[in-house]
Each structure stands twice: as structure tokens, then as C-alpha cells.
């Protein structure tokens, strides 16, 4: 039982952890901010607006020391949601242990470290797929003997569901990823050690609202995993073959409309992963009811912790053996999923495995998500409070002064920038330079394990940004596929006809096709929303420029000007809209682009008002689930700004 936590500075997060441990939490789950996750220091241009936002900012071992101050590392089980820079954060964690005389062999915990799903969904990658897989394999090979209680990787099917995966896709792509990781690790360790490597692989799974099917999904994953271990990797020890997984239940289905209903959804989703003992989660994290509104407050997180405590201590959930054993219905459901997943795994294998199939899988996910969104729009998929039963009494939960969400002090960023500058000026530059050069050398030689050089960097006081910059130099920069280019055009059902007519009429009057730039400023990698907008805009007949994630405001402005777009659409979900949106608007004006800007994302009403006053033309939030209506709105906006009519 733990909650995913961390924000602003190491010092504040440390205080939060100590408090949570007092409240009965049994481990740590560290949330890092996006700059730390993507390998940038707080003073990097791309970090703007993101420092300390979705997690804690850790720029060097000094920050890590402060983060873990007074926490007994030898006894703690620490989960770190860290991927591209996992090797680095583990090295910092180990260095802090070392400098506190804690034996590395006693360290327990997990680094998430699943890079494939970063390319497919979450977007906090730093290096190209090949080198990324090598870093993972290096960590696995290193920890299996050096830090034997550490789970070096947590294969995430969680984010695949968030990106729109069906249960079959979720199973198939996670298992294919695991296979790619294991294949890479097998090259790095000897034969006797390998079964133990297999046994250290754990999963991070999602659970959606269709909780019976979701439970079946977990049983199916267990079956496939065991078979994979026996048949492909020759593992025989049944303890090592066990499918170990942790869960965070679904955020995608949480609504902004009538958000109190989310508590009920969360409880049901928690049942999916706890009902049957044979497929019960080893660790459970529940999101907060108000995630679709903004950042949850400590009270909101406490409420989620209480759900787990009631399930565990008040109900009889944990008292029985597996309650589905012998159920024909459950067995049927499981074998259906196993069969479907095997077929999809075969398709991935045909593409050459998970690494080679990133483009394919991404496109499949974008299509599945488009389908889901369209179903909600049509009302085929019912979401209470959103597309049915919308009328509601006013909610007393959102009446407080803070509007029901947490806001991070914008002063944190400046503080961290100054702190990292001070850190850099107070260390032994010579030692830092030498450690970094050794890192480059290790990176360039594929046969050298990256961990020793990384540990040396951590000890020398290298910063997160410096470590990652060196590796970017050696491995190259990378932009993941957006998946939108190849997404299938939906079947003709007439539902887009009116919208297309409107786009066509306005395009005719303008003389050229309505052209929209869909942009994601900053480090936020959650691109589902932007992708759906891009695909629908194309299907509506617009020319769409979509460049994927991680763009600086300057780049968005330059693109808008060069491409001659009629409108700019921006999507932000990380809560950094207050810093980044004004910046984009300013850069646009400076570059001479007099085009309307529309914004979509998790944006509290108060902030939305501010943005409209600042010159943003429209703000859309998760309650605006009808994408076609948004599109129509945008076309009208373009027509209005260019003085042309939308009517026939």
C-alpha cells in the first residue's frame, strides 16, 4: 500500500514521505518531475514550467540525499517511476546508500524502466530504441548480482490501456515488450543466471471499469507469462515463473464531469485486481478522484489510500482461496483473451519484435483510441455524468477556496535553477569531466556495462542533464513515431459529412485548405489527446501539421509561421499550461503570426479564464468529449478571423 507521491523540491517531498510512512504506508513510490524523467537540468530551455510539477526535481546526488534523508534505505521498498534515466536515478540511489554505509545488497525496490511504452504512450523517452534497450539490459545484468533484491524493470501495460489499448492489445504488447527485454538481457548474462533474471521481471498493469474482463486479463497474462518462461526461455523453477505485478487503476476513464463518481469507478477497478487470489496484485496504487481536474491534494490521496485499507481490513476479500477456480465463464473469458493476445503477439513478432514494431503498435493504439472516443461521442459507450445522466446538483466537493485541486508554487522552479547552478560551481570540475569522458567511452563500447561509469558520474557530482546529454551525444536524439500518419480513415457512416462540408466551404472561401498546427509544448508526453485531435482534423478534411511531443514555444511559433497555418491548437496535461501557453502566445506574436490559438487539456476553470483574457481563443477540457463539435468550433473560428462565411 502506497501512494504515488513527490512534488517540487527534494526537501518538501522528504517531509511528505515521512508523513505518509507515519500514516501506515508501507513503502515509497517516488514521482519525478518531467525534466528529471527526460534527462534535463532545471535550467534547460525545455524544463520551463515543468520543474517540480508532476513530481520531484532530482538534479544530482545532493538532491537525492535530501530526498531520502532520515529514511532507512536498508529496510525500505522503493518504487521509482523512472524510465529513460532509470540507470542514472538508480546510480544516485545507490550512491546515497553507499555514502550512508548501507550495503547495496540490501536495497529493495523497482525502477520502472520500460522504454517501449514510453515510445507508445507516455513520451518520456530520451534515446533511440536500440541504445535504450541496451541501457535496460545493462541494468538487468548489473543488478541481478550486485543489487539482487532490486526489480530492474517493471513492464508496463498500464500506459498502453491509457493510450487506448484493448485488453488483447494490452496483453500482447506488454508480453512482446517483455520478450524483447529478455532477449536483450540474455546476451548480457550467463546461462545459469538467466532464470533469476526472468524471475526479477515484474509488470505494472492497468485495470479498467469492465472489471470482470479485467480480472480475466490478469489471469490470461499469468498463463502467457508462465508459458513464455517455460517454452521460450527454459525456466523450470515455478517460483521464478510466477507472474508478479503491481497495479495502478485506470485514469483514462475518470471524468471531469461529476468527478465524485470517479471514487466508485476506482473502487470497482480495485476489485478487478484483487478479487481472485490466483491473479491478485502484489502492489496497488489508486488514483485520486479529481485527476481529470488538476493535481490532487494530500487529502484526495488519503481518500484513495482509505479505499485500499477498507478493502483489505474491513471486507472479507482476503479470506478465501481463489473464488473463480472452476468457473466456466471465467475460464472461457481467459482463454479467449489468451488466444487473441497470442495472435497479436505473432503479428508483432512478424514485424521483428517489439522494438521494430513500435510504429505498428503505435498506429494500432491510435486507431483503438479513436474508436473508443467515437463510441463515447455516439453514446454507444456510456459514461455516467458525461454522455448520459448529465444533469447534476452542484458538487460541494469543489467549493473550497482551492477549487478542489493542488497548485505548485511557481517559485520552486527558480529555486531549483539557482540550486543547480550553485551545485555546478561548487564541485570538482576535473573529476566531473573525467567521469563524463569515461561515460562516453563506456557508451560507445557496446560490450561495456554502462552502470559502473554511471555510478562514477553520480559520485563525482555530475547532474542529471549532463549525464543524459553525454548519452544523447553518443546515441543520438530521437523522436518517436506519432502513429497518426498511418491511422486508418474511419469507415464512411455519414457522421462526418456536415463537418466536412463546413471545412470544404471555408477552404473554398479561403482559397486554400484550412490548415491547423497541433502542438504539444514542453516535456509532457501524454499525446493521446493531441493525436485524436490531429486524426479527426484530417478526417474532417483539414491539412494538419502535427510534430509530436516535446516542442519549445519557439519551435511551435516558427512552425506556425513557416507552415502558414490558420489556427494553432495546443495540448497540455501536465499542469504547466500557466507557464507554457503565455510563452507560446508571446513567441507567436513575436514571430508575426496573427493566428488564433486554442488550448486543450486538464485546465482548471480559473486558469481557463486567465487564458481567455490573455488572448487564447478557446479552452477545451476533458468534459468536451465531442471532438467533432470541437472541430466545427475551430473551423468557425478560422472563418470568423478571416472574414469568410461558414454557411452554404
Amino acid at each position, binding site marked *: 500500500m502506497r501512494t504515488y507521491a513527490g512534488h517540487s523540491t527534494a526537501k518538501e517531498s522528504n517531509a511528505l514521505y515521512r508523513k505518509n510512512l507515519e500514516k501506515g504506508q508501507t513503502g515509497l513510490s517516488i514521482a519525478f518531475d518531467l525534466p528529471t524523467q527526460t534527462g534535463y537540468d532545471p535550467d534547460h530551455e525545455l524544463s520551463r514550467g515543468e520543474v517540480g510539477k508532476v513530481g520531484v526535481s532530482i538534479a544530482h546526488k545532493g538532491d537525492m540525499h535530501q530526498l531520502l534523508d532520515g529514511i532507512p534505505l536498508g529496510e525500505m521498498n522503493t518504487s521509482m517511476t523512472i524510465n529513460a534515466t532509470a540507470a542514472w536515478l538508480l546510480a544516485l540511489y545507490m550512491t546515497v546508500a553507499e555514502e550512508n554505509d548501507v550495503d547495496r545488497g540490501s536495497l529493495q525496490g523497482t525502477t520502472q524502466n520500460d522504454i517501449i511504452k514510453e515510445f507508445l504512450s507516455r513520451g518520456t523517452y530520451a534515446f*533511440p530504441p536500440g541504445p535504450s534497450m541496451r541501457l535496460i539490459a545493462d541494468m538487468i545484468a548489473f543488478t541481478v548480482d550486485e543489487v539482487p533484491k532490486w526489480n530492474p524493470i517493471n513492464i508496463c501495460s498500464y500506459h498502453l490501456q491509457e493510450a487506448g489499448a484493448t485488453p488483447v492489445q494490452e496483453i500482447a504488447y506488454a508480453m512482446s515488450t517483455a520478450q524483447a527485454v529478455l532477449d536483450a538481457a540474455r546476451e548480457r548474462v550467463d546461462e545459469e543466471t538467466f532464470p533469476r533474471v526472468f524471475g526479477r521481471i515484474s509488470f505494472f498493469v492497468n485495470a479498467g471499469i469492465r472489471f470482470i474482463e479485467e480480472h480475466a486479463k490478469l489471469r490470461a497474462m499469468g498463463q502467457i507469462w508462465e508459458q513464455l518462461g517455460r517454452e521460450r526461455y527454459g525456466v523450470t523453477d515455478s517460483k521464478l515463473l510466477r507472474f508478479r505485478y503491481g497495479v495502478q487503476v485506470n485514469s483514462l476513464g475518470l471524468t471531469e464531469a461529476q468527478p465524485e463518481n470517479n471514487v466508485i469507478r476506482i473502487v470497482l477497478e480495485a476489485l478487478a485486481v484483487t478479487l481472485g487470489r490466483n491473479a491478485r496484485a502484489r502492489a496497488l496504487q489508486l488514483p485520486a478522484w479529481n485527476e481529470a481536474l488538476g493535481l490532487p491534494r494530500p487529502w484526495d490521496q488519503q481518500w484513495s489510500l482509505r479505499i485500499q485499507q477498507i478493502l483489505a481490513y474491513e471486507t472479507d476479500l482476503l479470506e478465501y482461496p481463489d473464488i473463480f477456480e472452476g468457473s466456466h465463464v471465467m475460464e472461457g473469458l481467459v482463454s479467449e483473451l489468451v488466444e487473441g493476445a497470442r495472435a497479436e503477439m505473432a503479428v508483432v513478432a512478424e514485424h521483428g519484435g517489439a522494438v521494430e514494431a513500435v510504429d505498428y503498435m503505435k498506429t494500432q493504439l491510435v486507431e483503438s483510441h479513436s474508436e473508443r472516443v467515437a463510441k463515447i461521442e455516439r453514446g454507444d459507450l456510456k459514461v455516467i455524468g458525461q454522455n448520459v445522466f448529465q444533469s447534476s446538483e452542484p458538487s460541494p466537493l469543489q467549493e473550497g477556496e482551492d477549487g478542489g485541486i493542488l497548485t505548485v508554487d511557481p517559485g520552486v522552479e527558480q529555486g531549483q535553477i539557482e540550486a543547480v547552478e550553485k551545485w555546478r560551481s561548487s564541485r570538482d570540475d576535473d573529476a566531473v569531466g573525467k567521469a563524463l569522458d569515461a561515460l562516453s567511452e563506456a557508451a560507445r563500447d557496446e560490450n561495456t556495462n554502462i552502470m559502473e561509469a554511471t555510478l562514477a558520474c553520480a559520485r563525482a557530482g555530475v547532474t542529471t542533464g549532463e549525464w543524459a546529454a553525454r548519452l544523447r*551525444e*553518443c*546515441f*543520438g*536524439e530521437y*523522436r518517436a513515431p*506519432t502513429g*497518426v*500518419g498511418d491511422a486508418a*480513415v474511419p469507415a*464512411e457512416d455519414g457522421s*462526418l459529412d456536415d463537418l*466536412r462540408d463546413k*471545412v*470544404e466551404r471555408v477552404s*473554398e*472561401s*479561403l*482559397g*486554400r*485548405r484550412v490548415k491547423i498546427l497541433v502542438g504539444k509544448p514542453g516535456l509532457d508526453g501524454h499525446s493521446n489527446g493531441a493525436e485524436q485531435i*490531429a*486524426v479527426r*482534423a*484530417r*478526417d*474532417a*478534411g*483539414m*491539412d*494538419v*501539421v*502535427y*510534430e*509530436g511531443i516535446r516542442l*519549445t514555444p*519557439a*519551435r511551435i*511559433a*516558427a*512552425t506556425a*509561421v*513557416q*507552415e*502558414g497555418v490558420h489556427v494553432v491548437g495546443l495540448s497540455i496535461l501536465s499542469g504547466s499550461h500557466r507557464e507554457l501557453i503565455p510563452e507560446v502566445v508571446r513567441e507567436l506574436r513575436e514571430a508575426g503570426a496573427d493566428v488564433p490559438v486554442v488550448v486543450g487539456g486538464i485546465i482548471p476553470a480559473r486558469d481557463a479564464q486567465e487564458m481567455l483574457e490573455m488572448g487564447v481563443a478557446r479552452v477545451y477540457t476533458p468534459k468536451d468529449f465531442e471532438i467533432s463539435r470541437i472541430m466545427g468550433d475551430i473551423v468557425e473560428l478560422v472563418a470568423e478571423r478571416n472574414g469568410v462565411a461558414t454557411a452554404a
Partner: protein
Amino acid sequence: MSEGAADLGRRLASGDRSAAPAALNVIEDRSPRGRERARELLAVVSPASLGHEAPAHIVGLTGPPGAGKSSLLSALVREWRARGKTVAVLAVDPSSKRSGGSLLGDRARIDHDPKDDGILIRSTAAGGRLGGLAAATREAVQALAPAFDVVVVETVGVGQSETDVEEVSDTTVVVVQPGSGDTLQFIKAGIMEVPDLLVVTKADLGDVALRARRDLSAALRSLGSRDTKVLAVASLPPPEGVDELIDALEGHREATDIAARRLRARRLAALDEFTVEHGERALRALGGRRDAERWLRGQDEGLDVPGLVAALEQRAAGAS
């Protein structure tokens, strides 16, 4: 609707790159008023008005999807900028025929500094003209050529479009990845013109790329094409062969009579536009394609494409 179209043209003619985006907006405008403005703009940047051919090196870059064009282009742009050359990239994407809309995402993979005004990247949809480069692309090249050192026209090669690329560029490059036999087959079957340069990407694959390079060279020789260079390039770090490719591009340009090539391209473009506008029947009235081409070769070398189209129209009217 601010600046006059002719003013935009004059700014480009004098090398003012900041006029480029607005000029491209004008050229893409297909309304009658837009066409009028485009004609005004293009008249100012025509070779006759400039008094010479525009100095830019116009490079056509094409190849099948997934061949690594974007990564290659990214590496090329970086190297051109390092050599102090300004670069405009026109990325032409296929449009969805069903909705008319399109996703233009290729520019994402060209890594560059957004504050660097020596780079312009503009993506356009092919406008539903199957396989063909939009007429607008031809005009866009003409508008950009006086203001940039290099103008790249990048397009997905599916059959016909390579030929179209050849018609607008001084040097055509076809990009293939190792192990793709299709391109070779297309060239052998005469579906695709022999390019000026063939680039095999993913040279980091080692032997596979080297073999592909050898096979292509042999095939080209058997077709009697001794001039086409075949190069192997790795665009991912550490990049290999990019320097050599740029040298080869420059070498080709130096060895080519640019004025003659562009003159021929303008005449072919005029004939295409005439045919699109008036149909095959009108072409027959001119005695068919070959006769028309021959007739065009006798026309004033200073005429730009609209002038040539007008001449063809006049002749067709006289003939009927």
C-alpha cells in the same frame, strides 16, 4: 490581406527570406483572386525578370516510405547549415482522397534550431492529384529559389512522383534502404527515370548496405547508365557519408547545364498545365504531345510557365 504579391516577390528576389511563408500562402491560394496574385508574384521572380536563373541548387529527394528520407534530410540540413548554406525544404505529402485532409508530420524529424532563419520547412499536401506533385510545388520552388542557397523538394516516391520531382529539380536523389528490390525493378522496367544520385541508407547495417550498393551499381551499369553515383549513408550517429553526399550533389550541379535543364522543365511544366486545364483533346489539337514538345523548343527561352501556357493556348485556338 496586407502586402502586395509583387512586393513579396521583390523581397524574395532581393534575398529576403522572411517573405517566404507569406509568398507560399499566396501561391497555395487556388481562388481566382489568389491565382492572379500568384501570377504577379511569380512574374517578379521569373528568370526573365531576375535576368538570370535563380542561384539556388534545387534538389529533388524521393524514395519509398520508410527508406529513411527524413533522417537523411535531417543530417543533410545540419551539414548544409554547417557549411553556411541556407536551406528551404518543401515536403510534399500524399492527401487522403476520401476527406481531402492530410497529416503533414514529416518535418518533425528534421531536427533544427527554431530561431535559425536560414532554414525554412514547409509541408504541403499533394492536393489529391494522384502521384503528381501539386502544381503549387513547382511555383513554390520558383519563389524560393532566389532567396535560398538550397531548395529541397521531398516527396514519397510512389511511381509517377519521381518523374515530377525530376521535372522541378537540378539534381534528383532517390533514397532506398538496403534490401528493397522494388526501386531497382522500377528503374529496370522504365517506370522510374534513372536518378542523378542513388542513396542507400542505413549504412550502419554494414554488409547489407554495401551489398545493396553493389547490386544497384551493377544494375545501373547494365542499363548503360554510367553517370549515376550510388552512395551509402548512415544518418544516425555517428553519421557516415553525409559529407560525401553533399560533395556529390555539388559535383552533379557543376557538371550540369542548369539553364538548359530548367528551360526544359519549364516547357514540360507548361505542357502539363495546359493538358490539365484543357484536356487531352486540346493536346491532340496541337498534334499530340511530341509535336507540342517540339514546338515548345522553338519558343522564346525567356518565357516563364504562364507565358508558355498562354502561347500553347493561342496556338491551340488557332489550330481548331
